[in-house]
């Protein structure tokens, strides 16, 4: 798993490459923690290049979303692949975490 961090005007984008699974949770948590500690108020996880998210990965996304809300910050997910989107939908994730199809859409929605 590779995670690249990009700072954009309205938040921080984490471009994730690889599977978001139990085995990779440590690296993902560390990247999120780094962004949080840098004062990020809107964390955008780009799943465009993530082929698979397992139950542990989903739990991590929900936990991060809940923790960010506690500090008046927000988690968004960007461009999940079809299978990942199905998994997320089955677990009602879109009701908890906004999912966007483009960086422009997520930034526009946040600004609004």
């Amino acid at each position, binding site marked *: 798993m590779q995670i690249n961090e990009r700072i954009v005007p309205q938040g921080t984008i984490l471009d994730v490459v690889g599977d978001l699974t*139990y085995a990779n*949770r440590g690296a993902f948590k560390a990247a999120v923690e780094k962004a949080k500690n840098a004062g990020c108020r809107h964390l955008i996880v780009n799943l465009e290049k993530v*082929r*698979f998210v*397992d*139950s*542990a990965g*989903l*739990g*991590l996304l*929900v*936990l*991060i979303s*809940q923790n960010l809300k506690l500090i008046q910050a927000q988690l968004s997910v960007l461009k999940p692949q079809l*299978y990942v989107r199905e998994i997320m*939908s*089955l*677990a*009602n994730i879109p*009701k*908890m975490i906004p999912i966007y199809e483009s960086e422009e859409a997520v930034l526009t929605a946040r600004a609004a």
Partner: protein
Amino acid sequence: MNSNVTQPIERRADSSTESEEAAPTVLLVEDETITRTSMAARLRRLGHRVLEAENGLVALDVARRERPDLYIVDWMMPEMDGPTFCETVRRDPLLKSSQLLLMTAHDQPAQIAEGLARGADDFLSKSASKQEIVARVLAGLRTSRLVRELETTGNELESSLLLLQKKQAETEADLQSAAAFVRSLLPPQGSLVQGIALAWEYQPSLMLGGDLFGVMAIDADYLGLYILDASGHGVAAALRSASLMTFLRAENMLRLLGSYDPEKVLHEANRCFPLSAEGEYFTLWVGQLHMPTRCLSYASAGHSGALVSSAQSSSRWLTRSSSPLGFDPSAQFACERIDLQPGDRLFLLSDGIYEVPSPNGELWGRERFQDVIDRGKRTSLSATIAACFSQARSWQQTQYFQDDAAIVGLELTGDPKGSSNG
């Protein structure tokens, strides 16, 4: 004991404390008394403890008893010459790492090569200067000390490895015991109640699995069934699953809720099993089959794994979007109903059975799984389940699953007891 072996130990006045490092021991093997005595005196003046032997055979006895730090061995000796002594030392498991300094009056290249080939570490000419003797002895002792340290470290590593292996064996025995206990909680296969057959196959990814299931009679008319999936893997997930499994026992639900109503069961489970601080949670599918009418009511908390296969039509998933346990304290888990027919099969399964990647990363997927179920209608329930496992293994080209894999199959084989009620 040979009378020619002397073990003079020269202690310095300030060397009586145990904490002080002992003087290095040098074994001097030389048949010429004058040469031996002269060299021994010189070494003692350098602060070394010196043992003396007149030939190789005597020296071997001394060496095995005293484990000297350095040997200075004359080439030419009666009984056993220097090179033969070196070879013997190298073959001896106790002595083989000793530092051997071969002493000769001739320092021809061919002789040096032979000495090195037969086990010597270095050479010392009998005509060497005092400075050279000191330098070679100190170099030999330095190497000896390093070798001893390596040996000690190696021994410590070996001890640690043995200890670790012992602990690992104990842990594995504990895990096997725990796995056997968890497996004993799973329902017995075969004819569950009159008119309903049960078969299942379960392959945890590790010794202890986090995906568990249960099928149990609630009372004379109702059958309760569930399958749960703990996020994550390993012992922690398995322990959490065992805890939820205990919670889902029929007597506990009847005591808490008065029934095994799936909606109520999930609501109560959602209250009792919140998302952990590490993001751990469960997905859970719960069903209740009214056996007289074959009406199945069911609800799911984020679990995708229930499928009905009927003789007359294609199989269909009993799935809808819902929050896993603990994601949302206010979540509602709507109950749905389906009327089953004789011959219908209900499968509960963990996602680990179809979320298996091929070597190039493509997942086997729900559609391929469903296809095996549909093609297995004319084979026995257990054979259909076995075919699913077989094809999943074939797809991933390995016997072992990355996640827990479970399939539970129920088949309505005929008229259920009390069908007159329905």
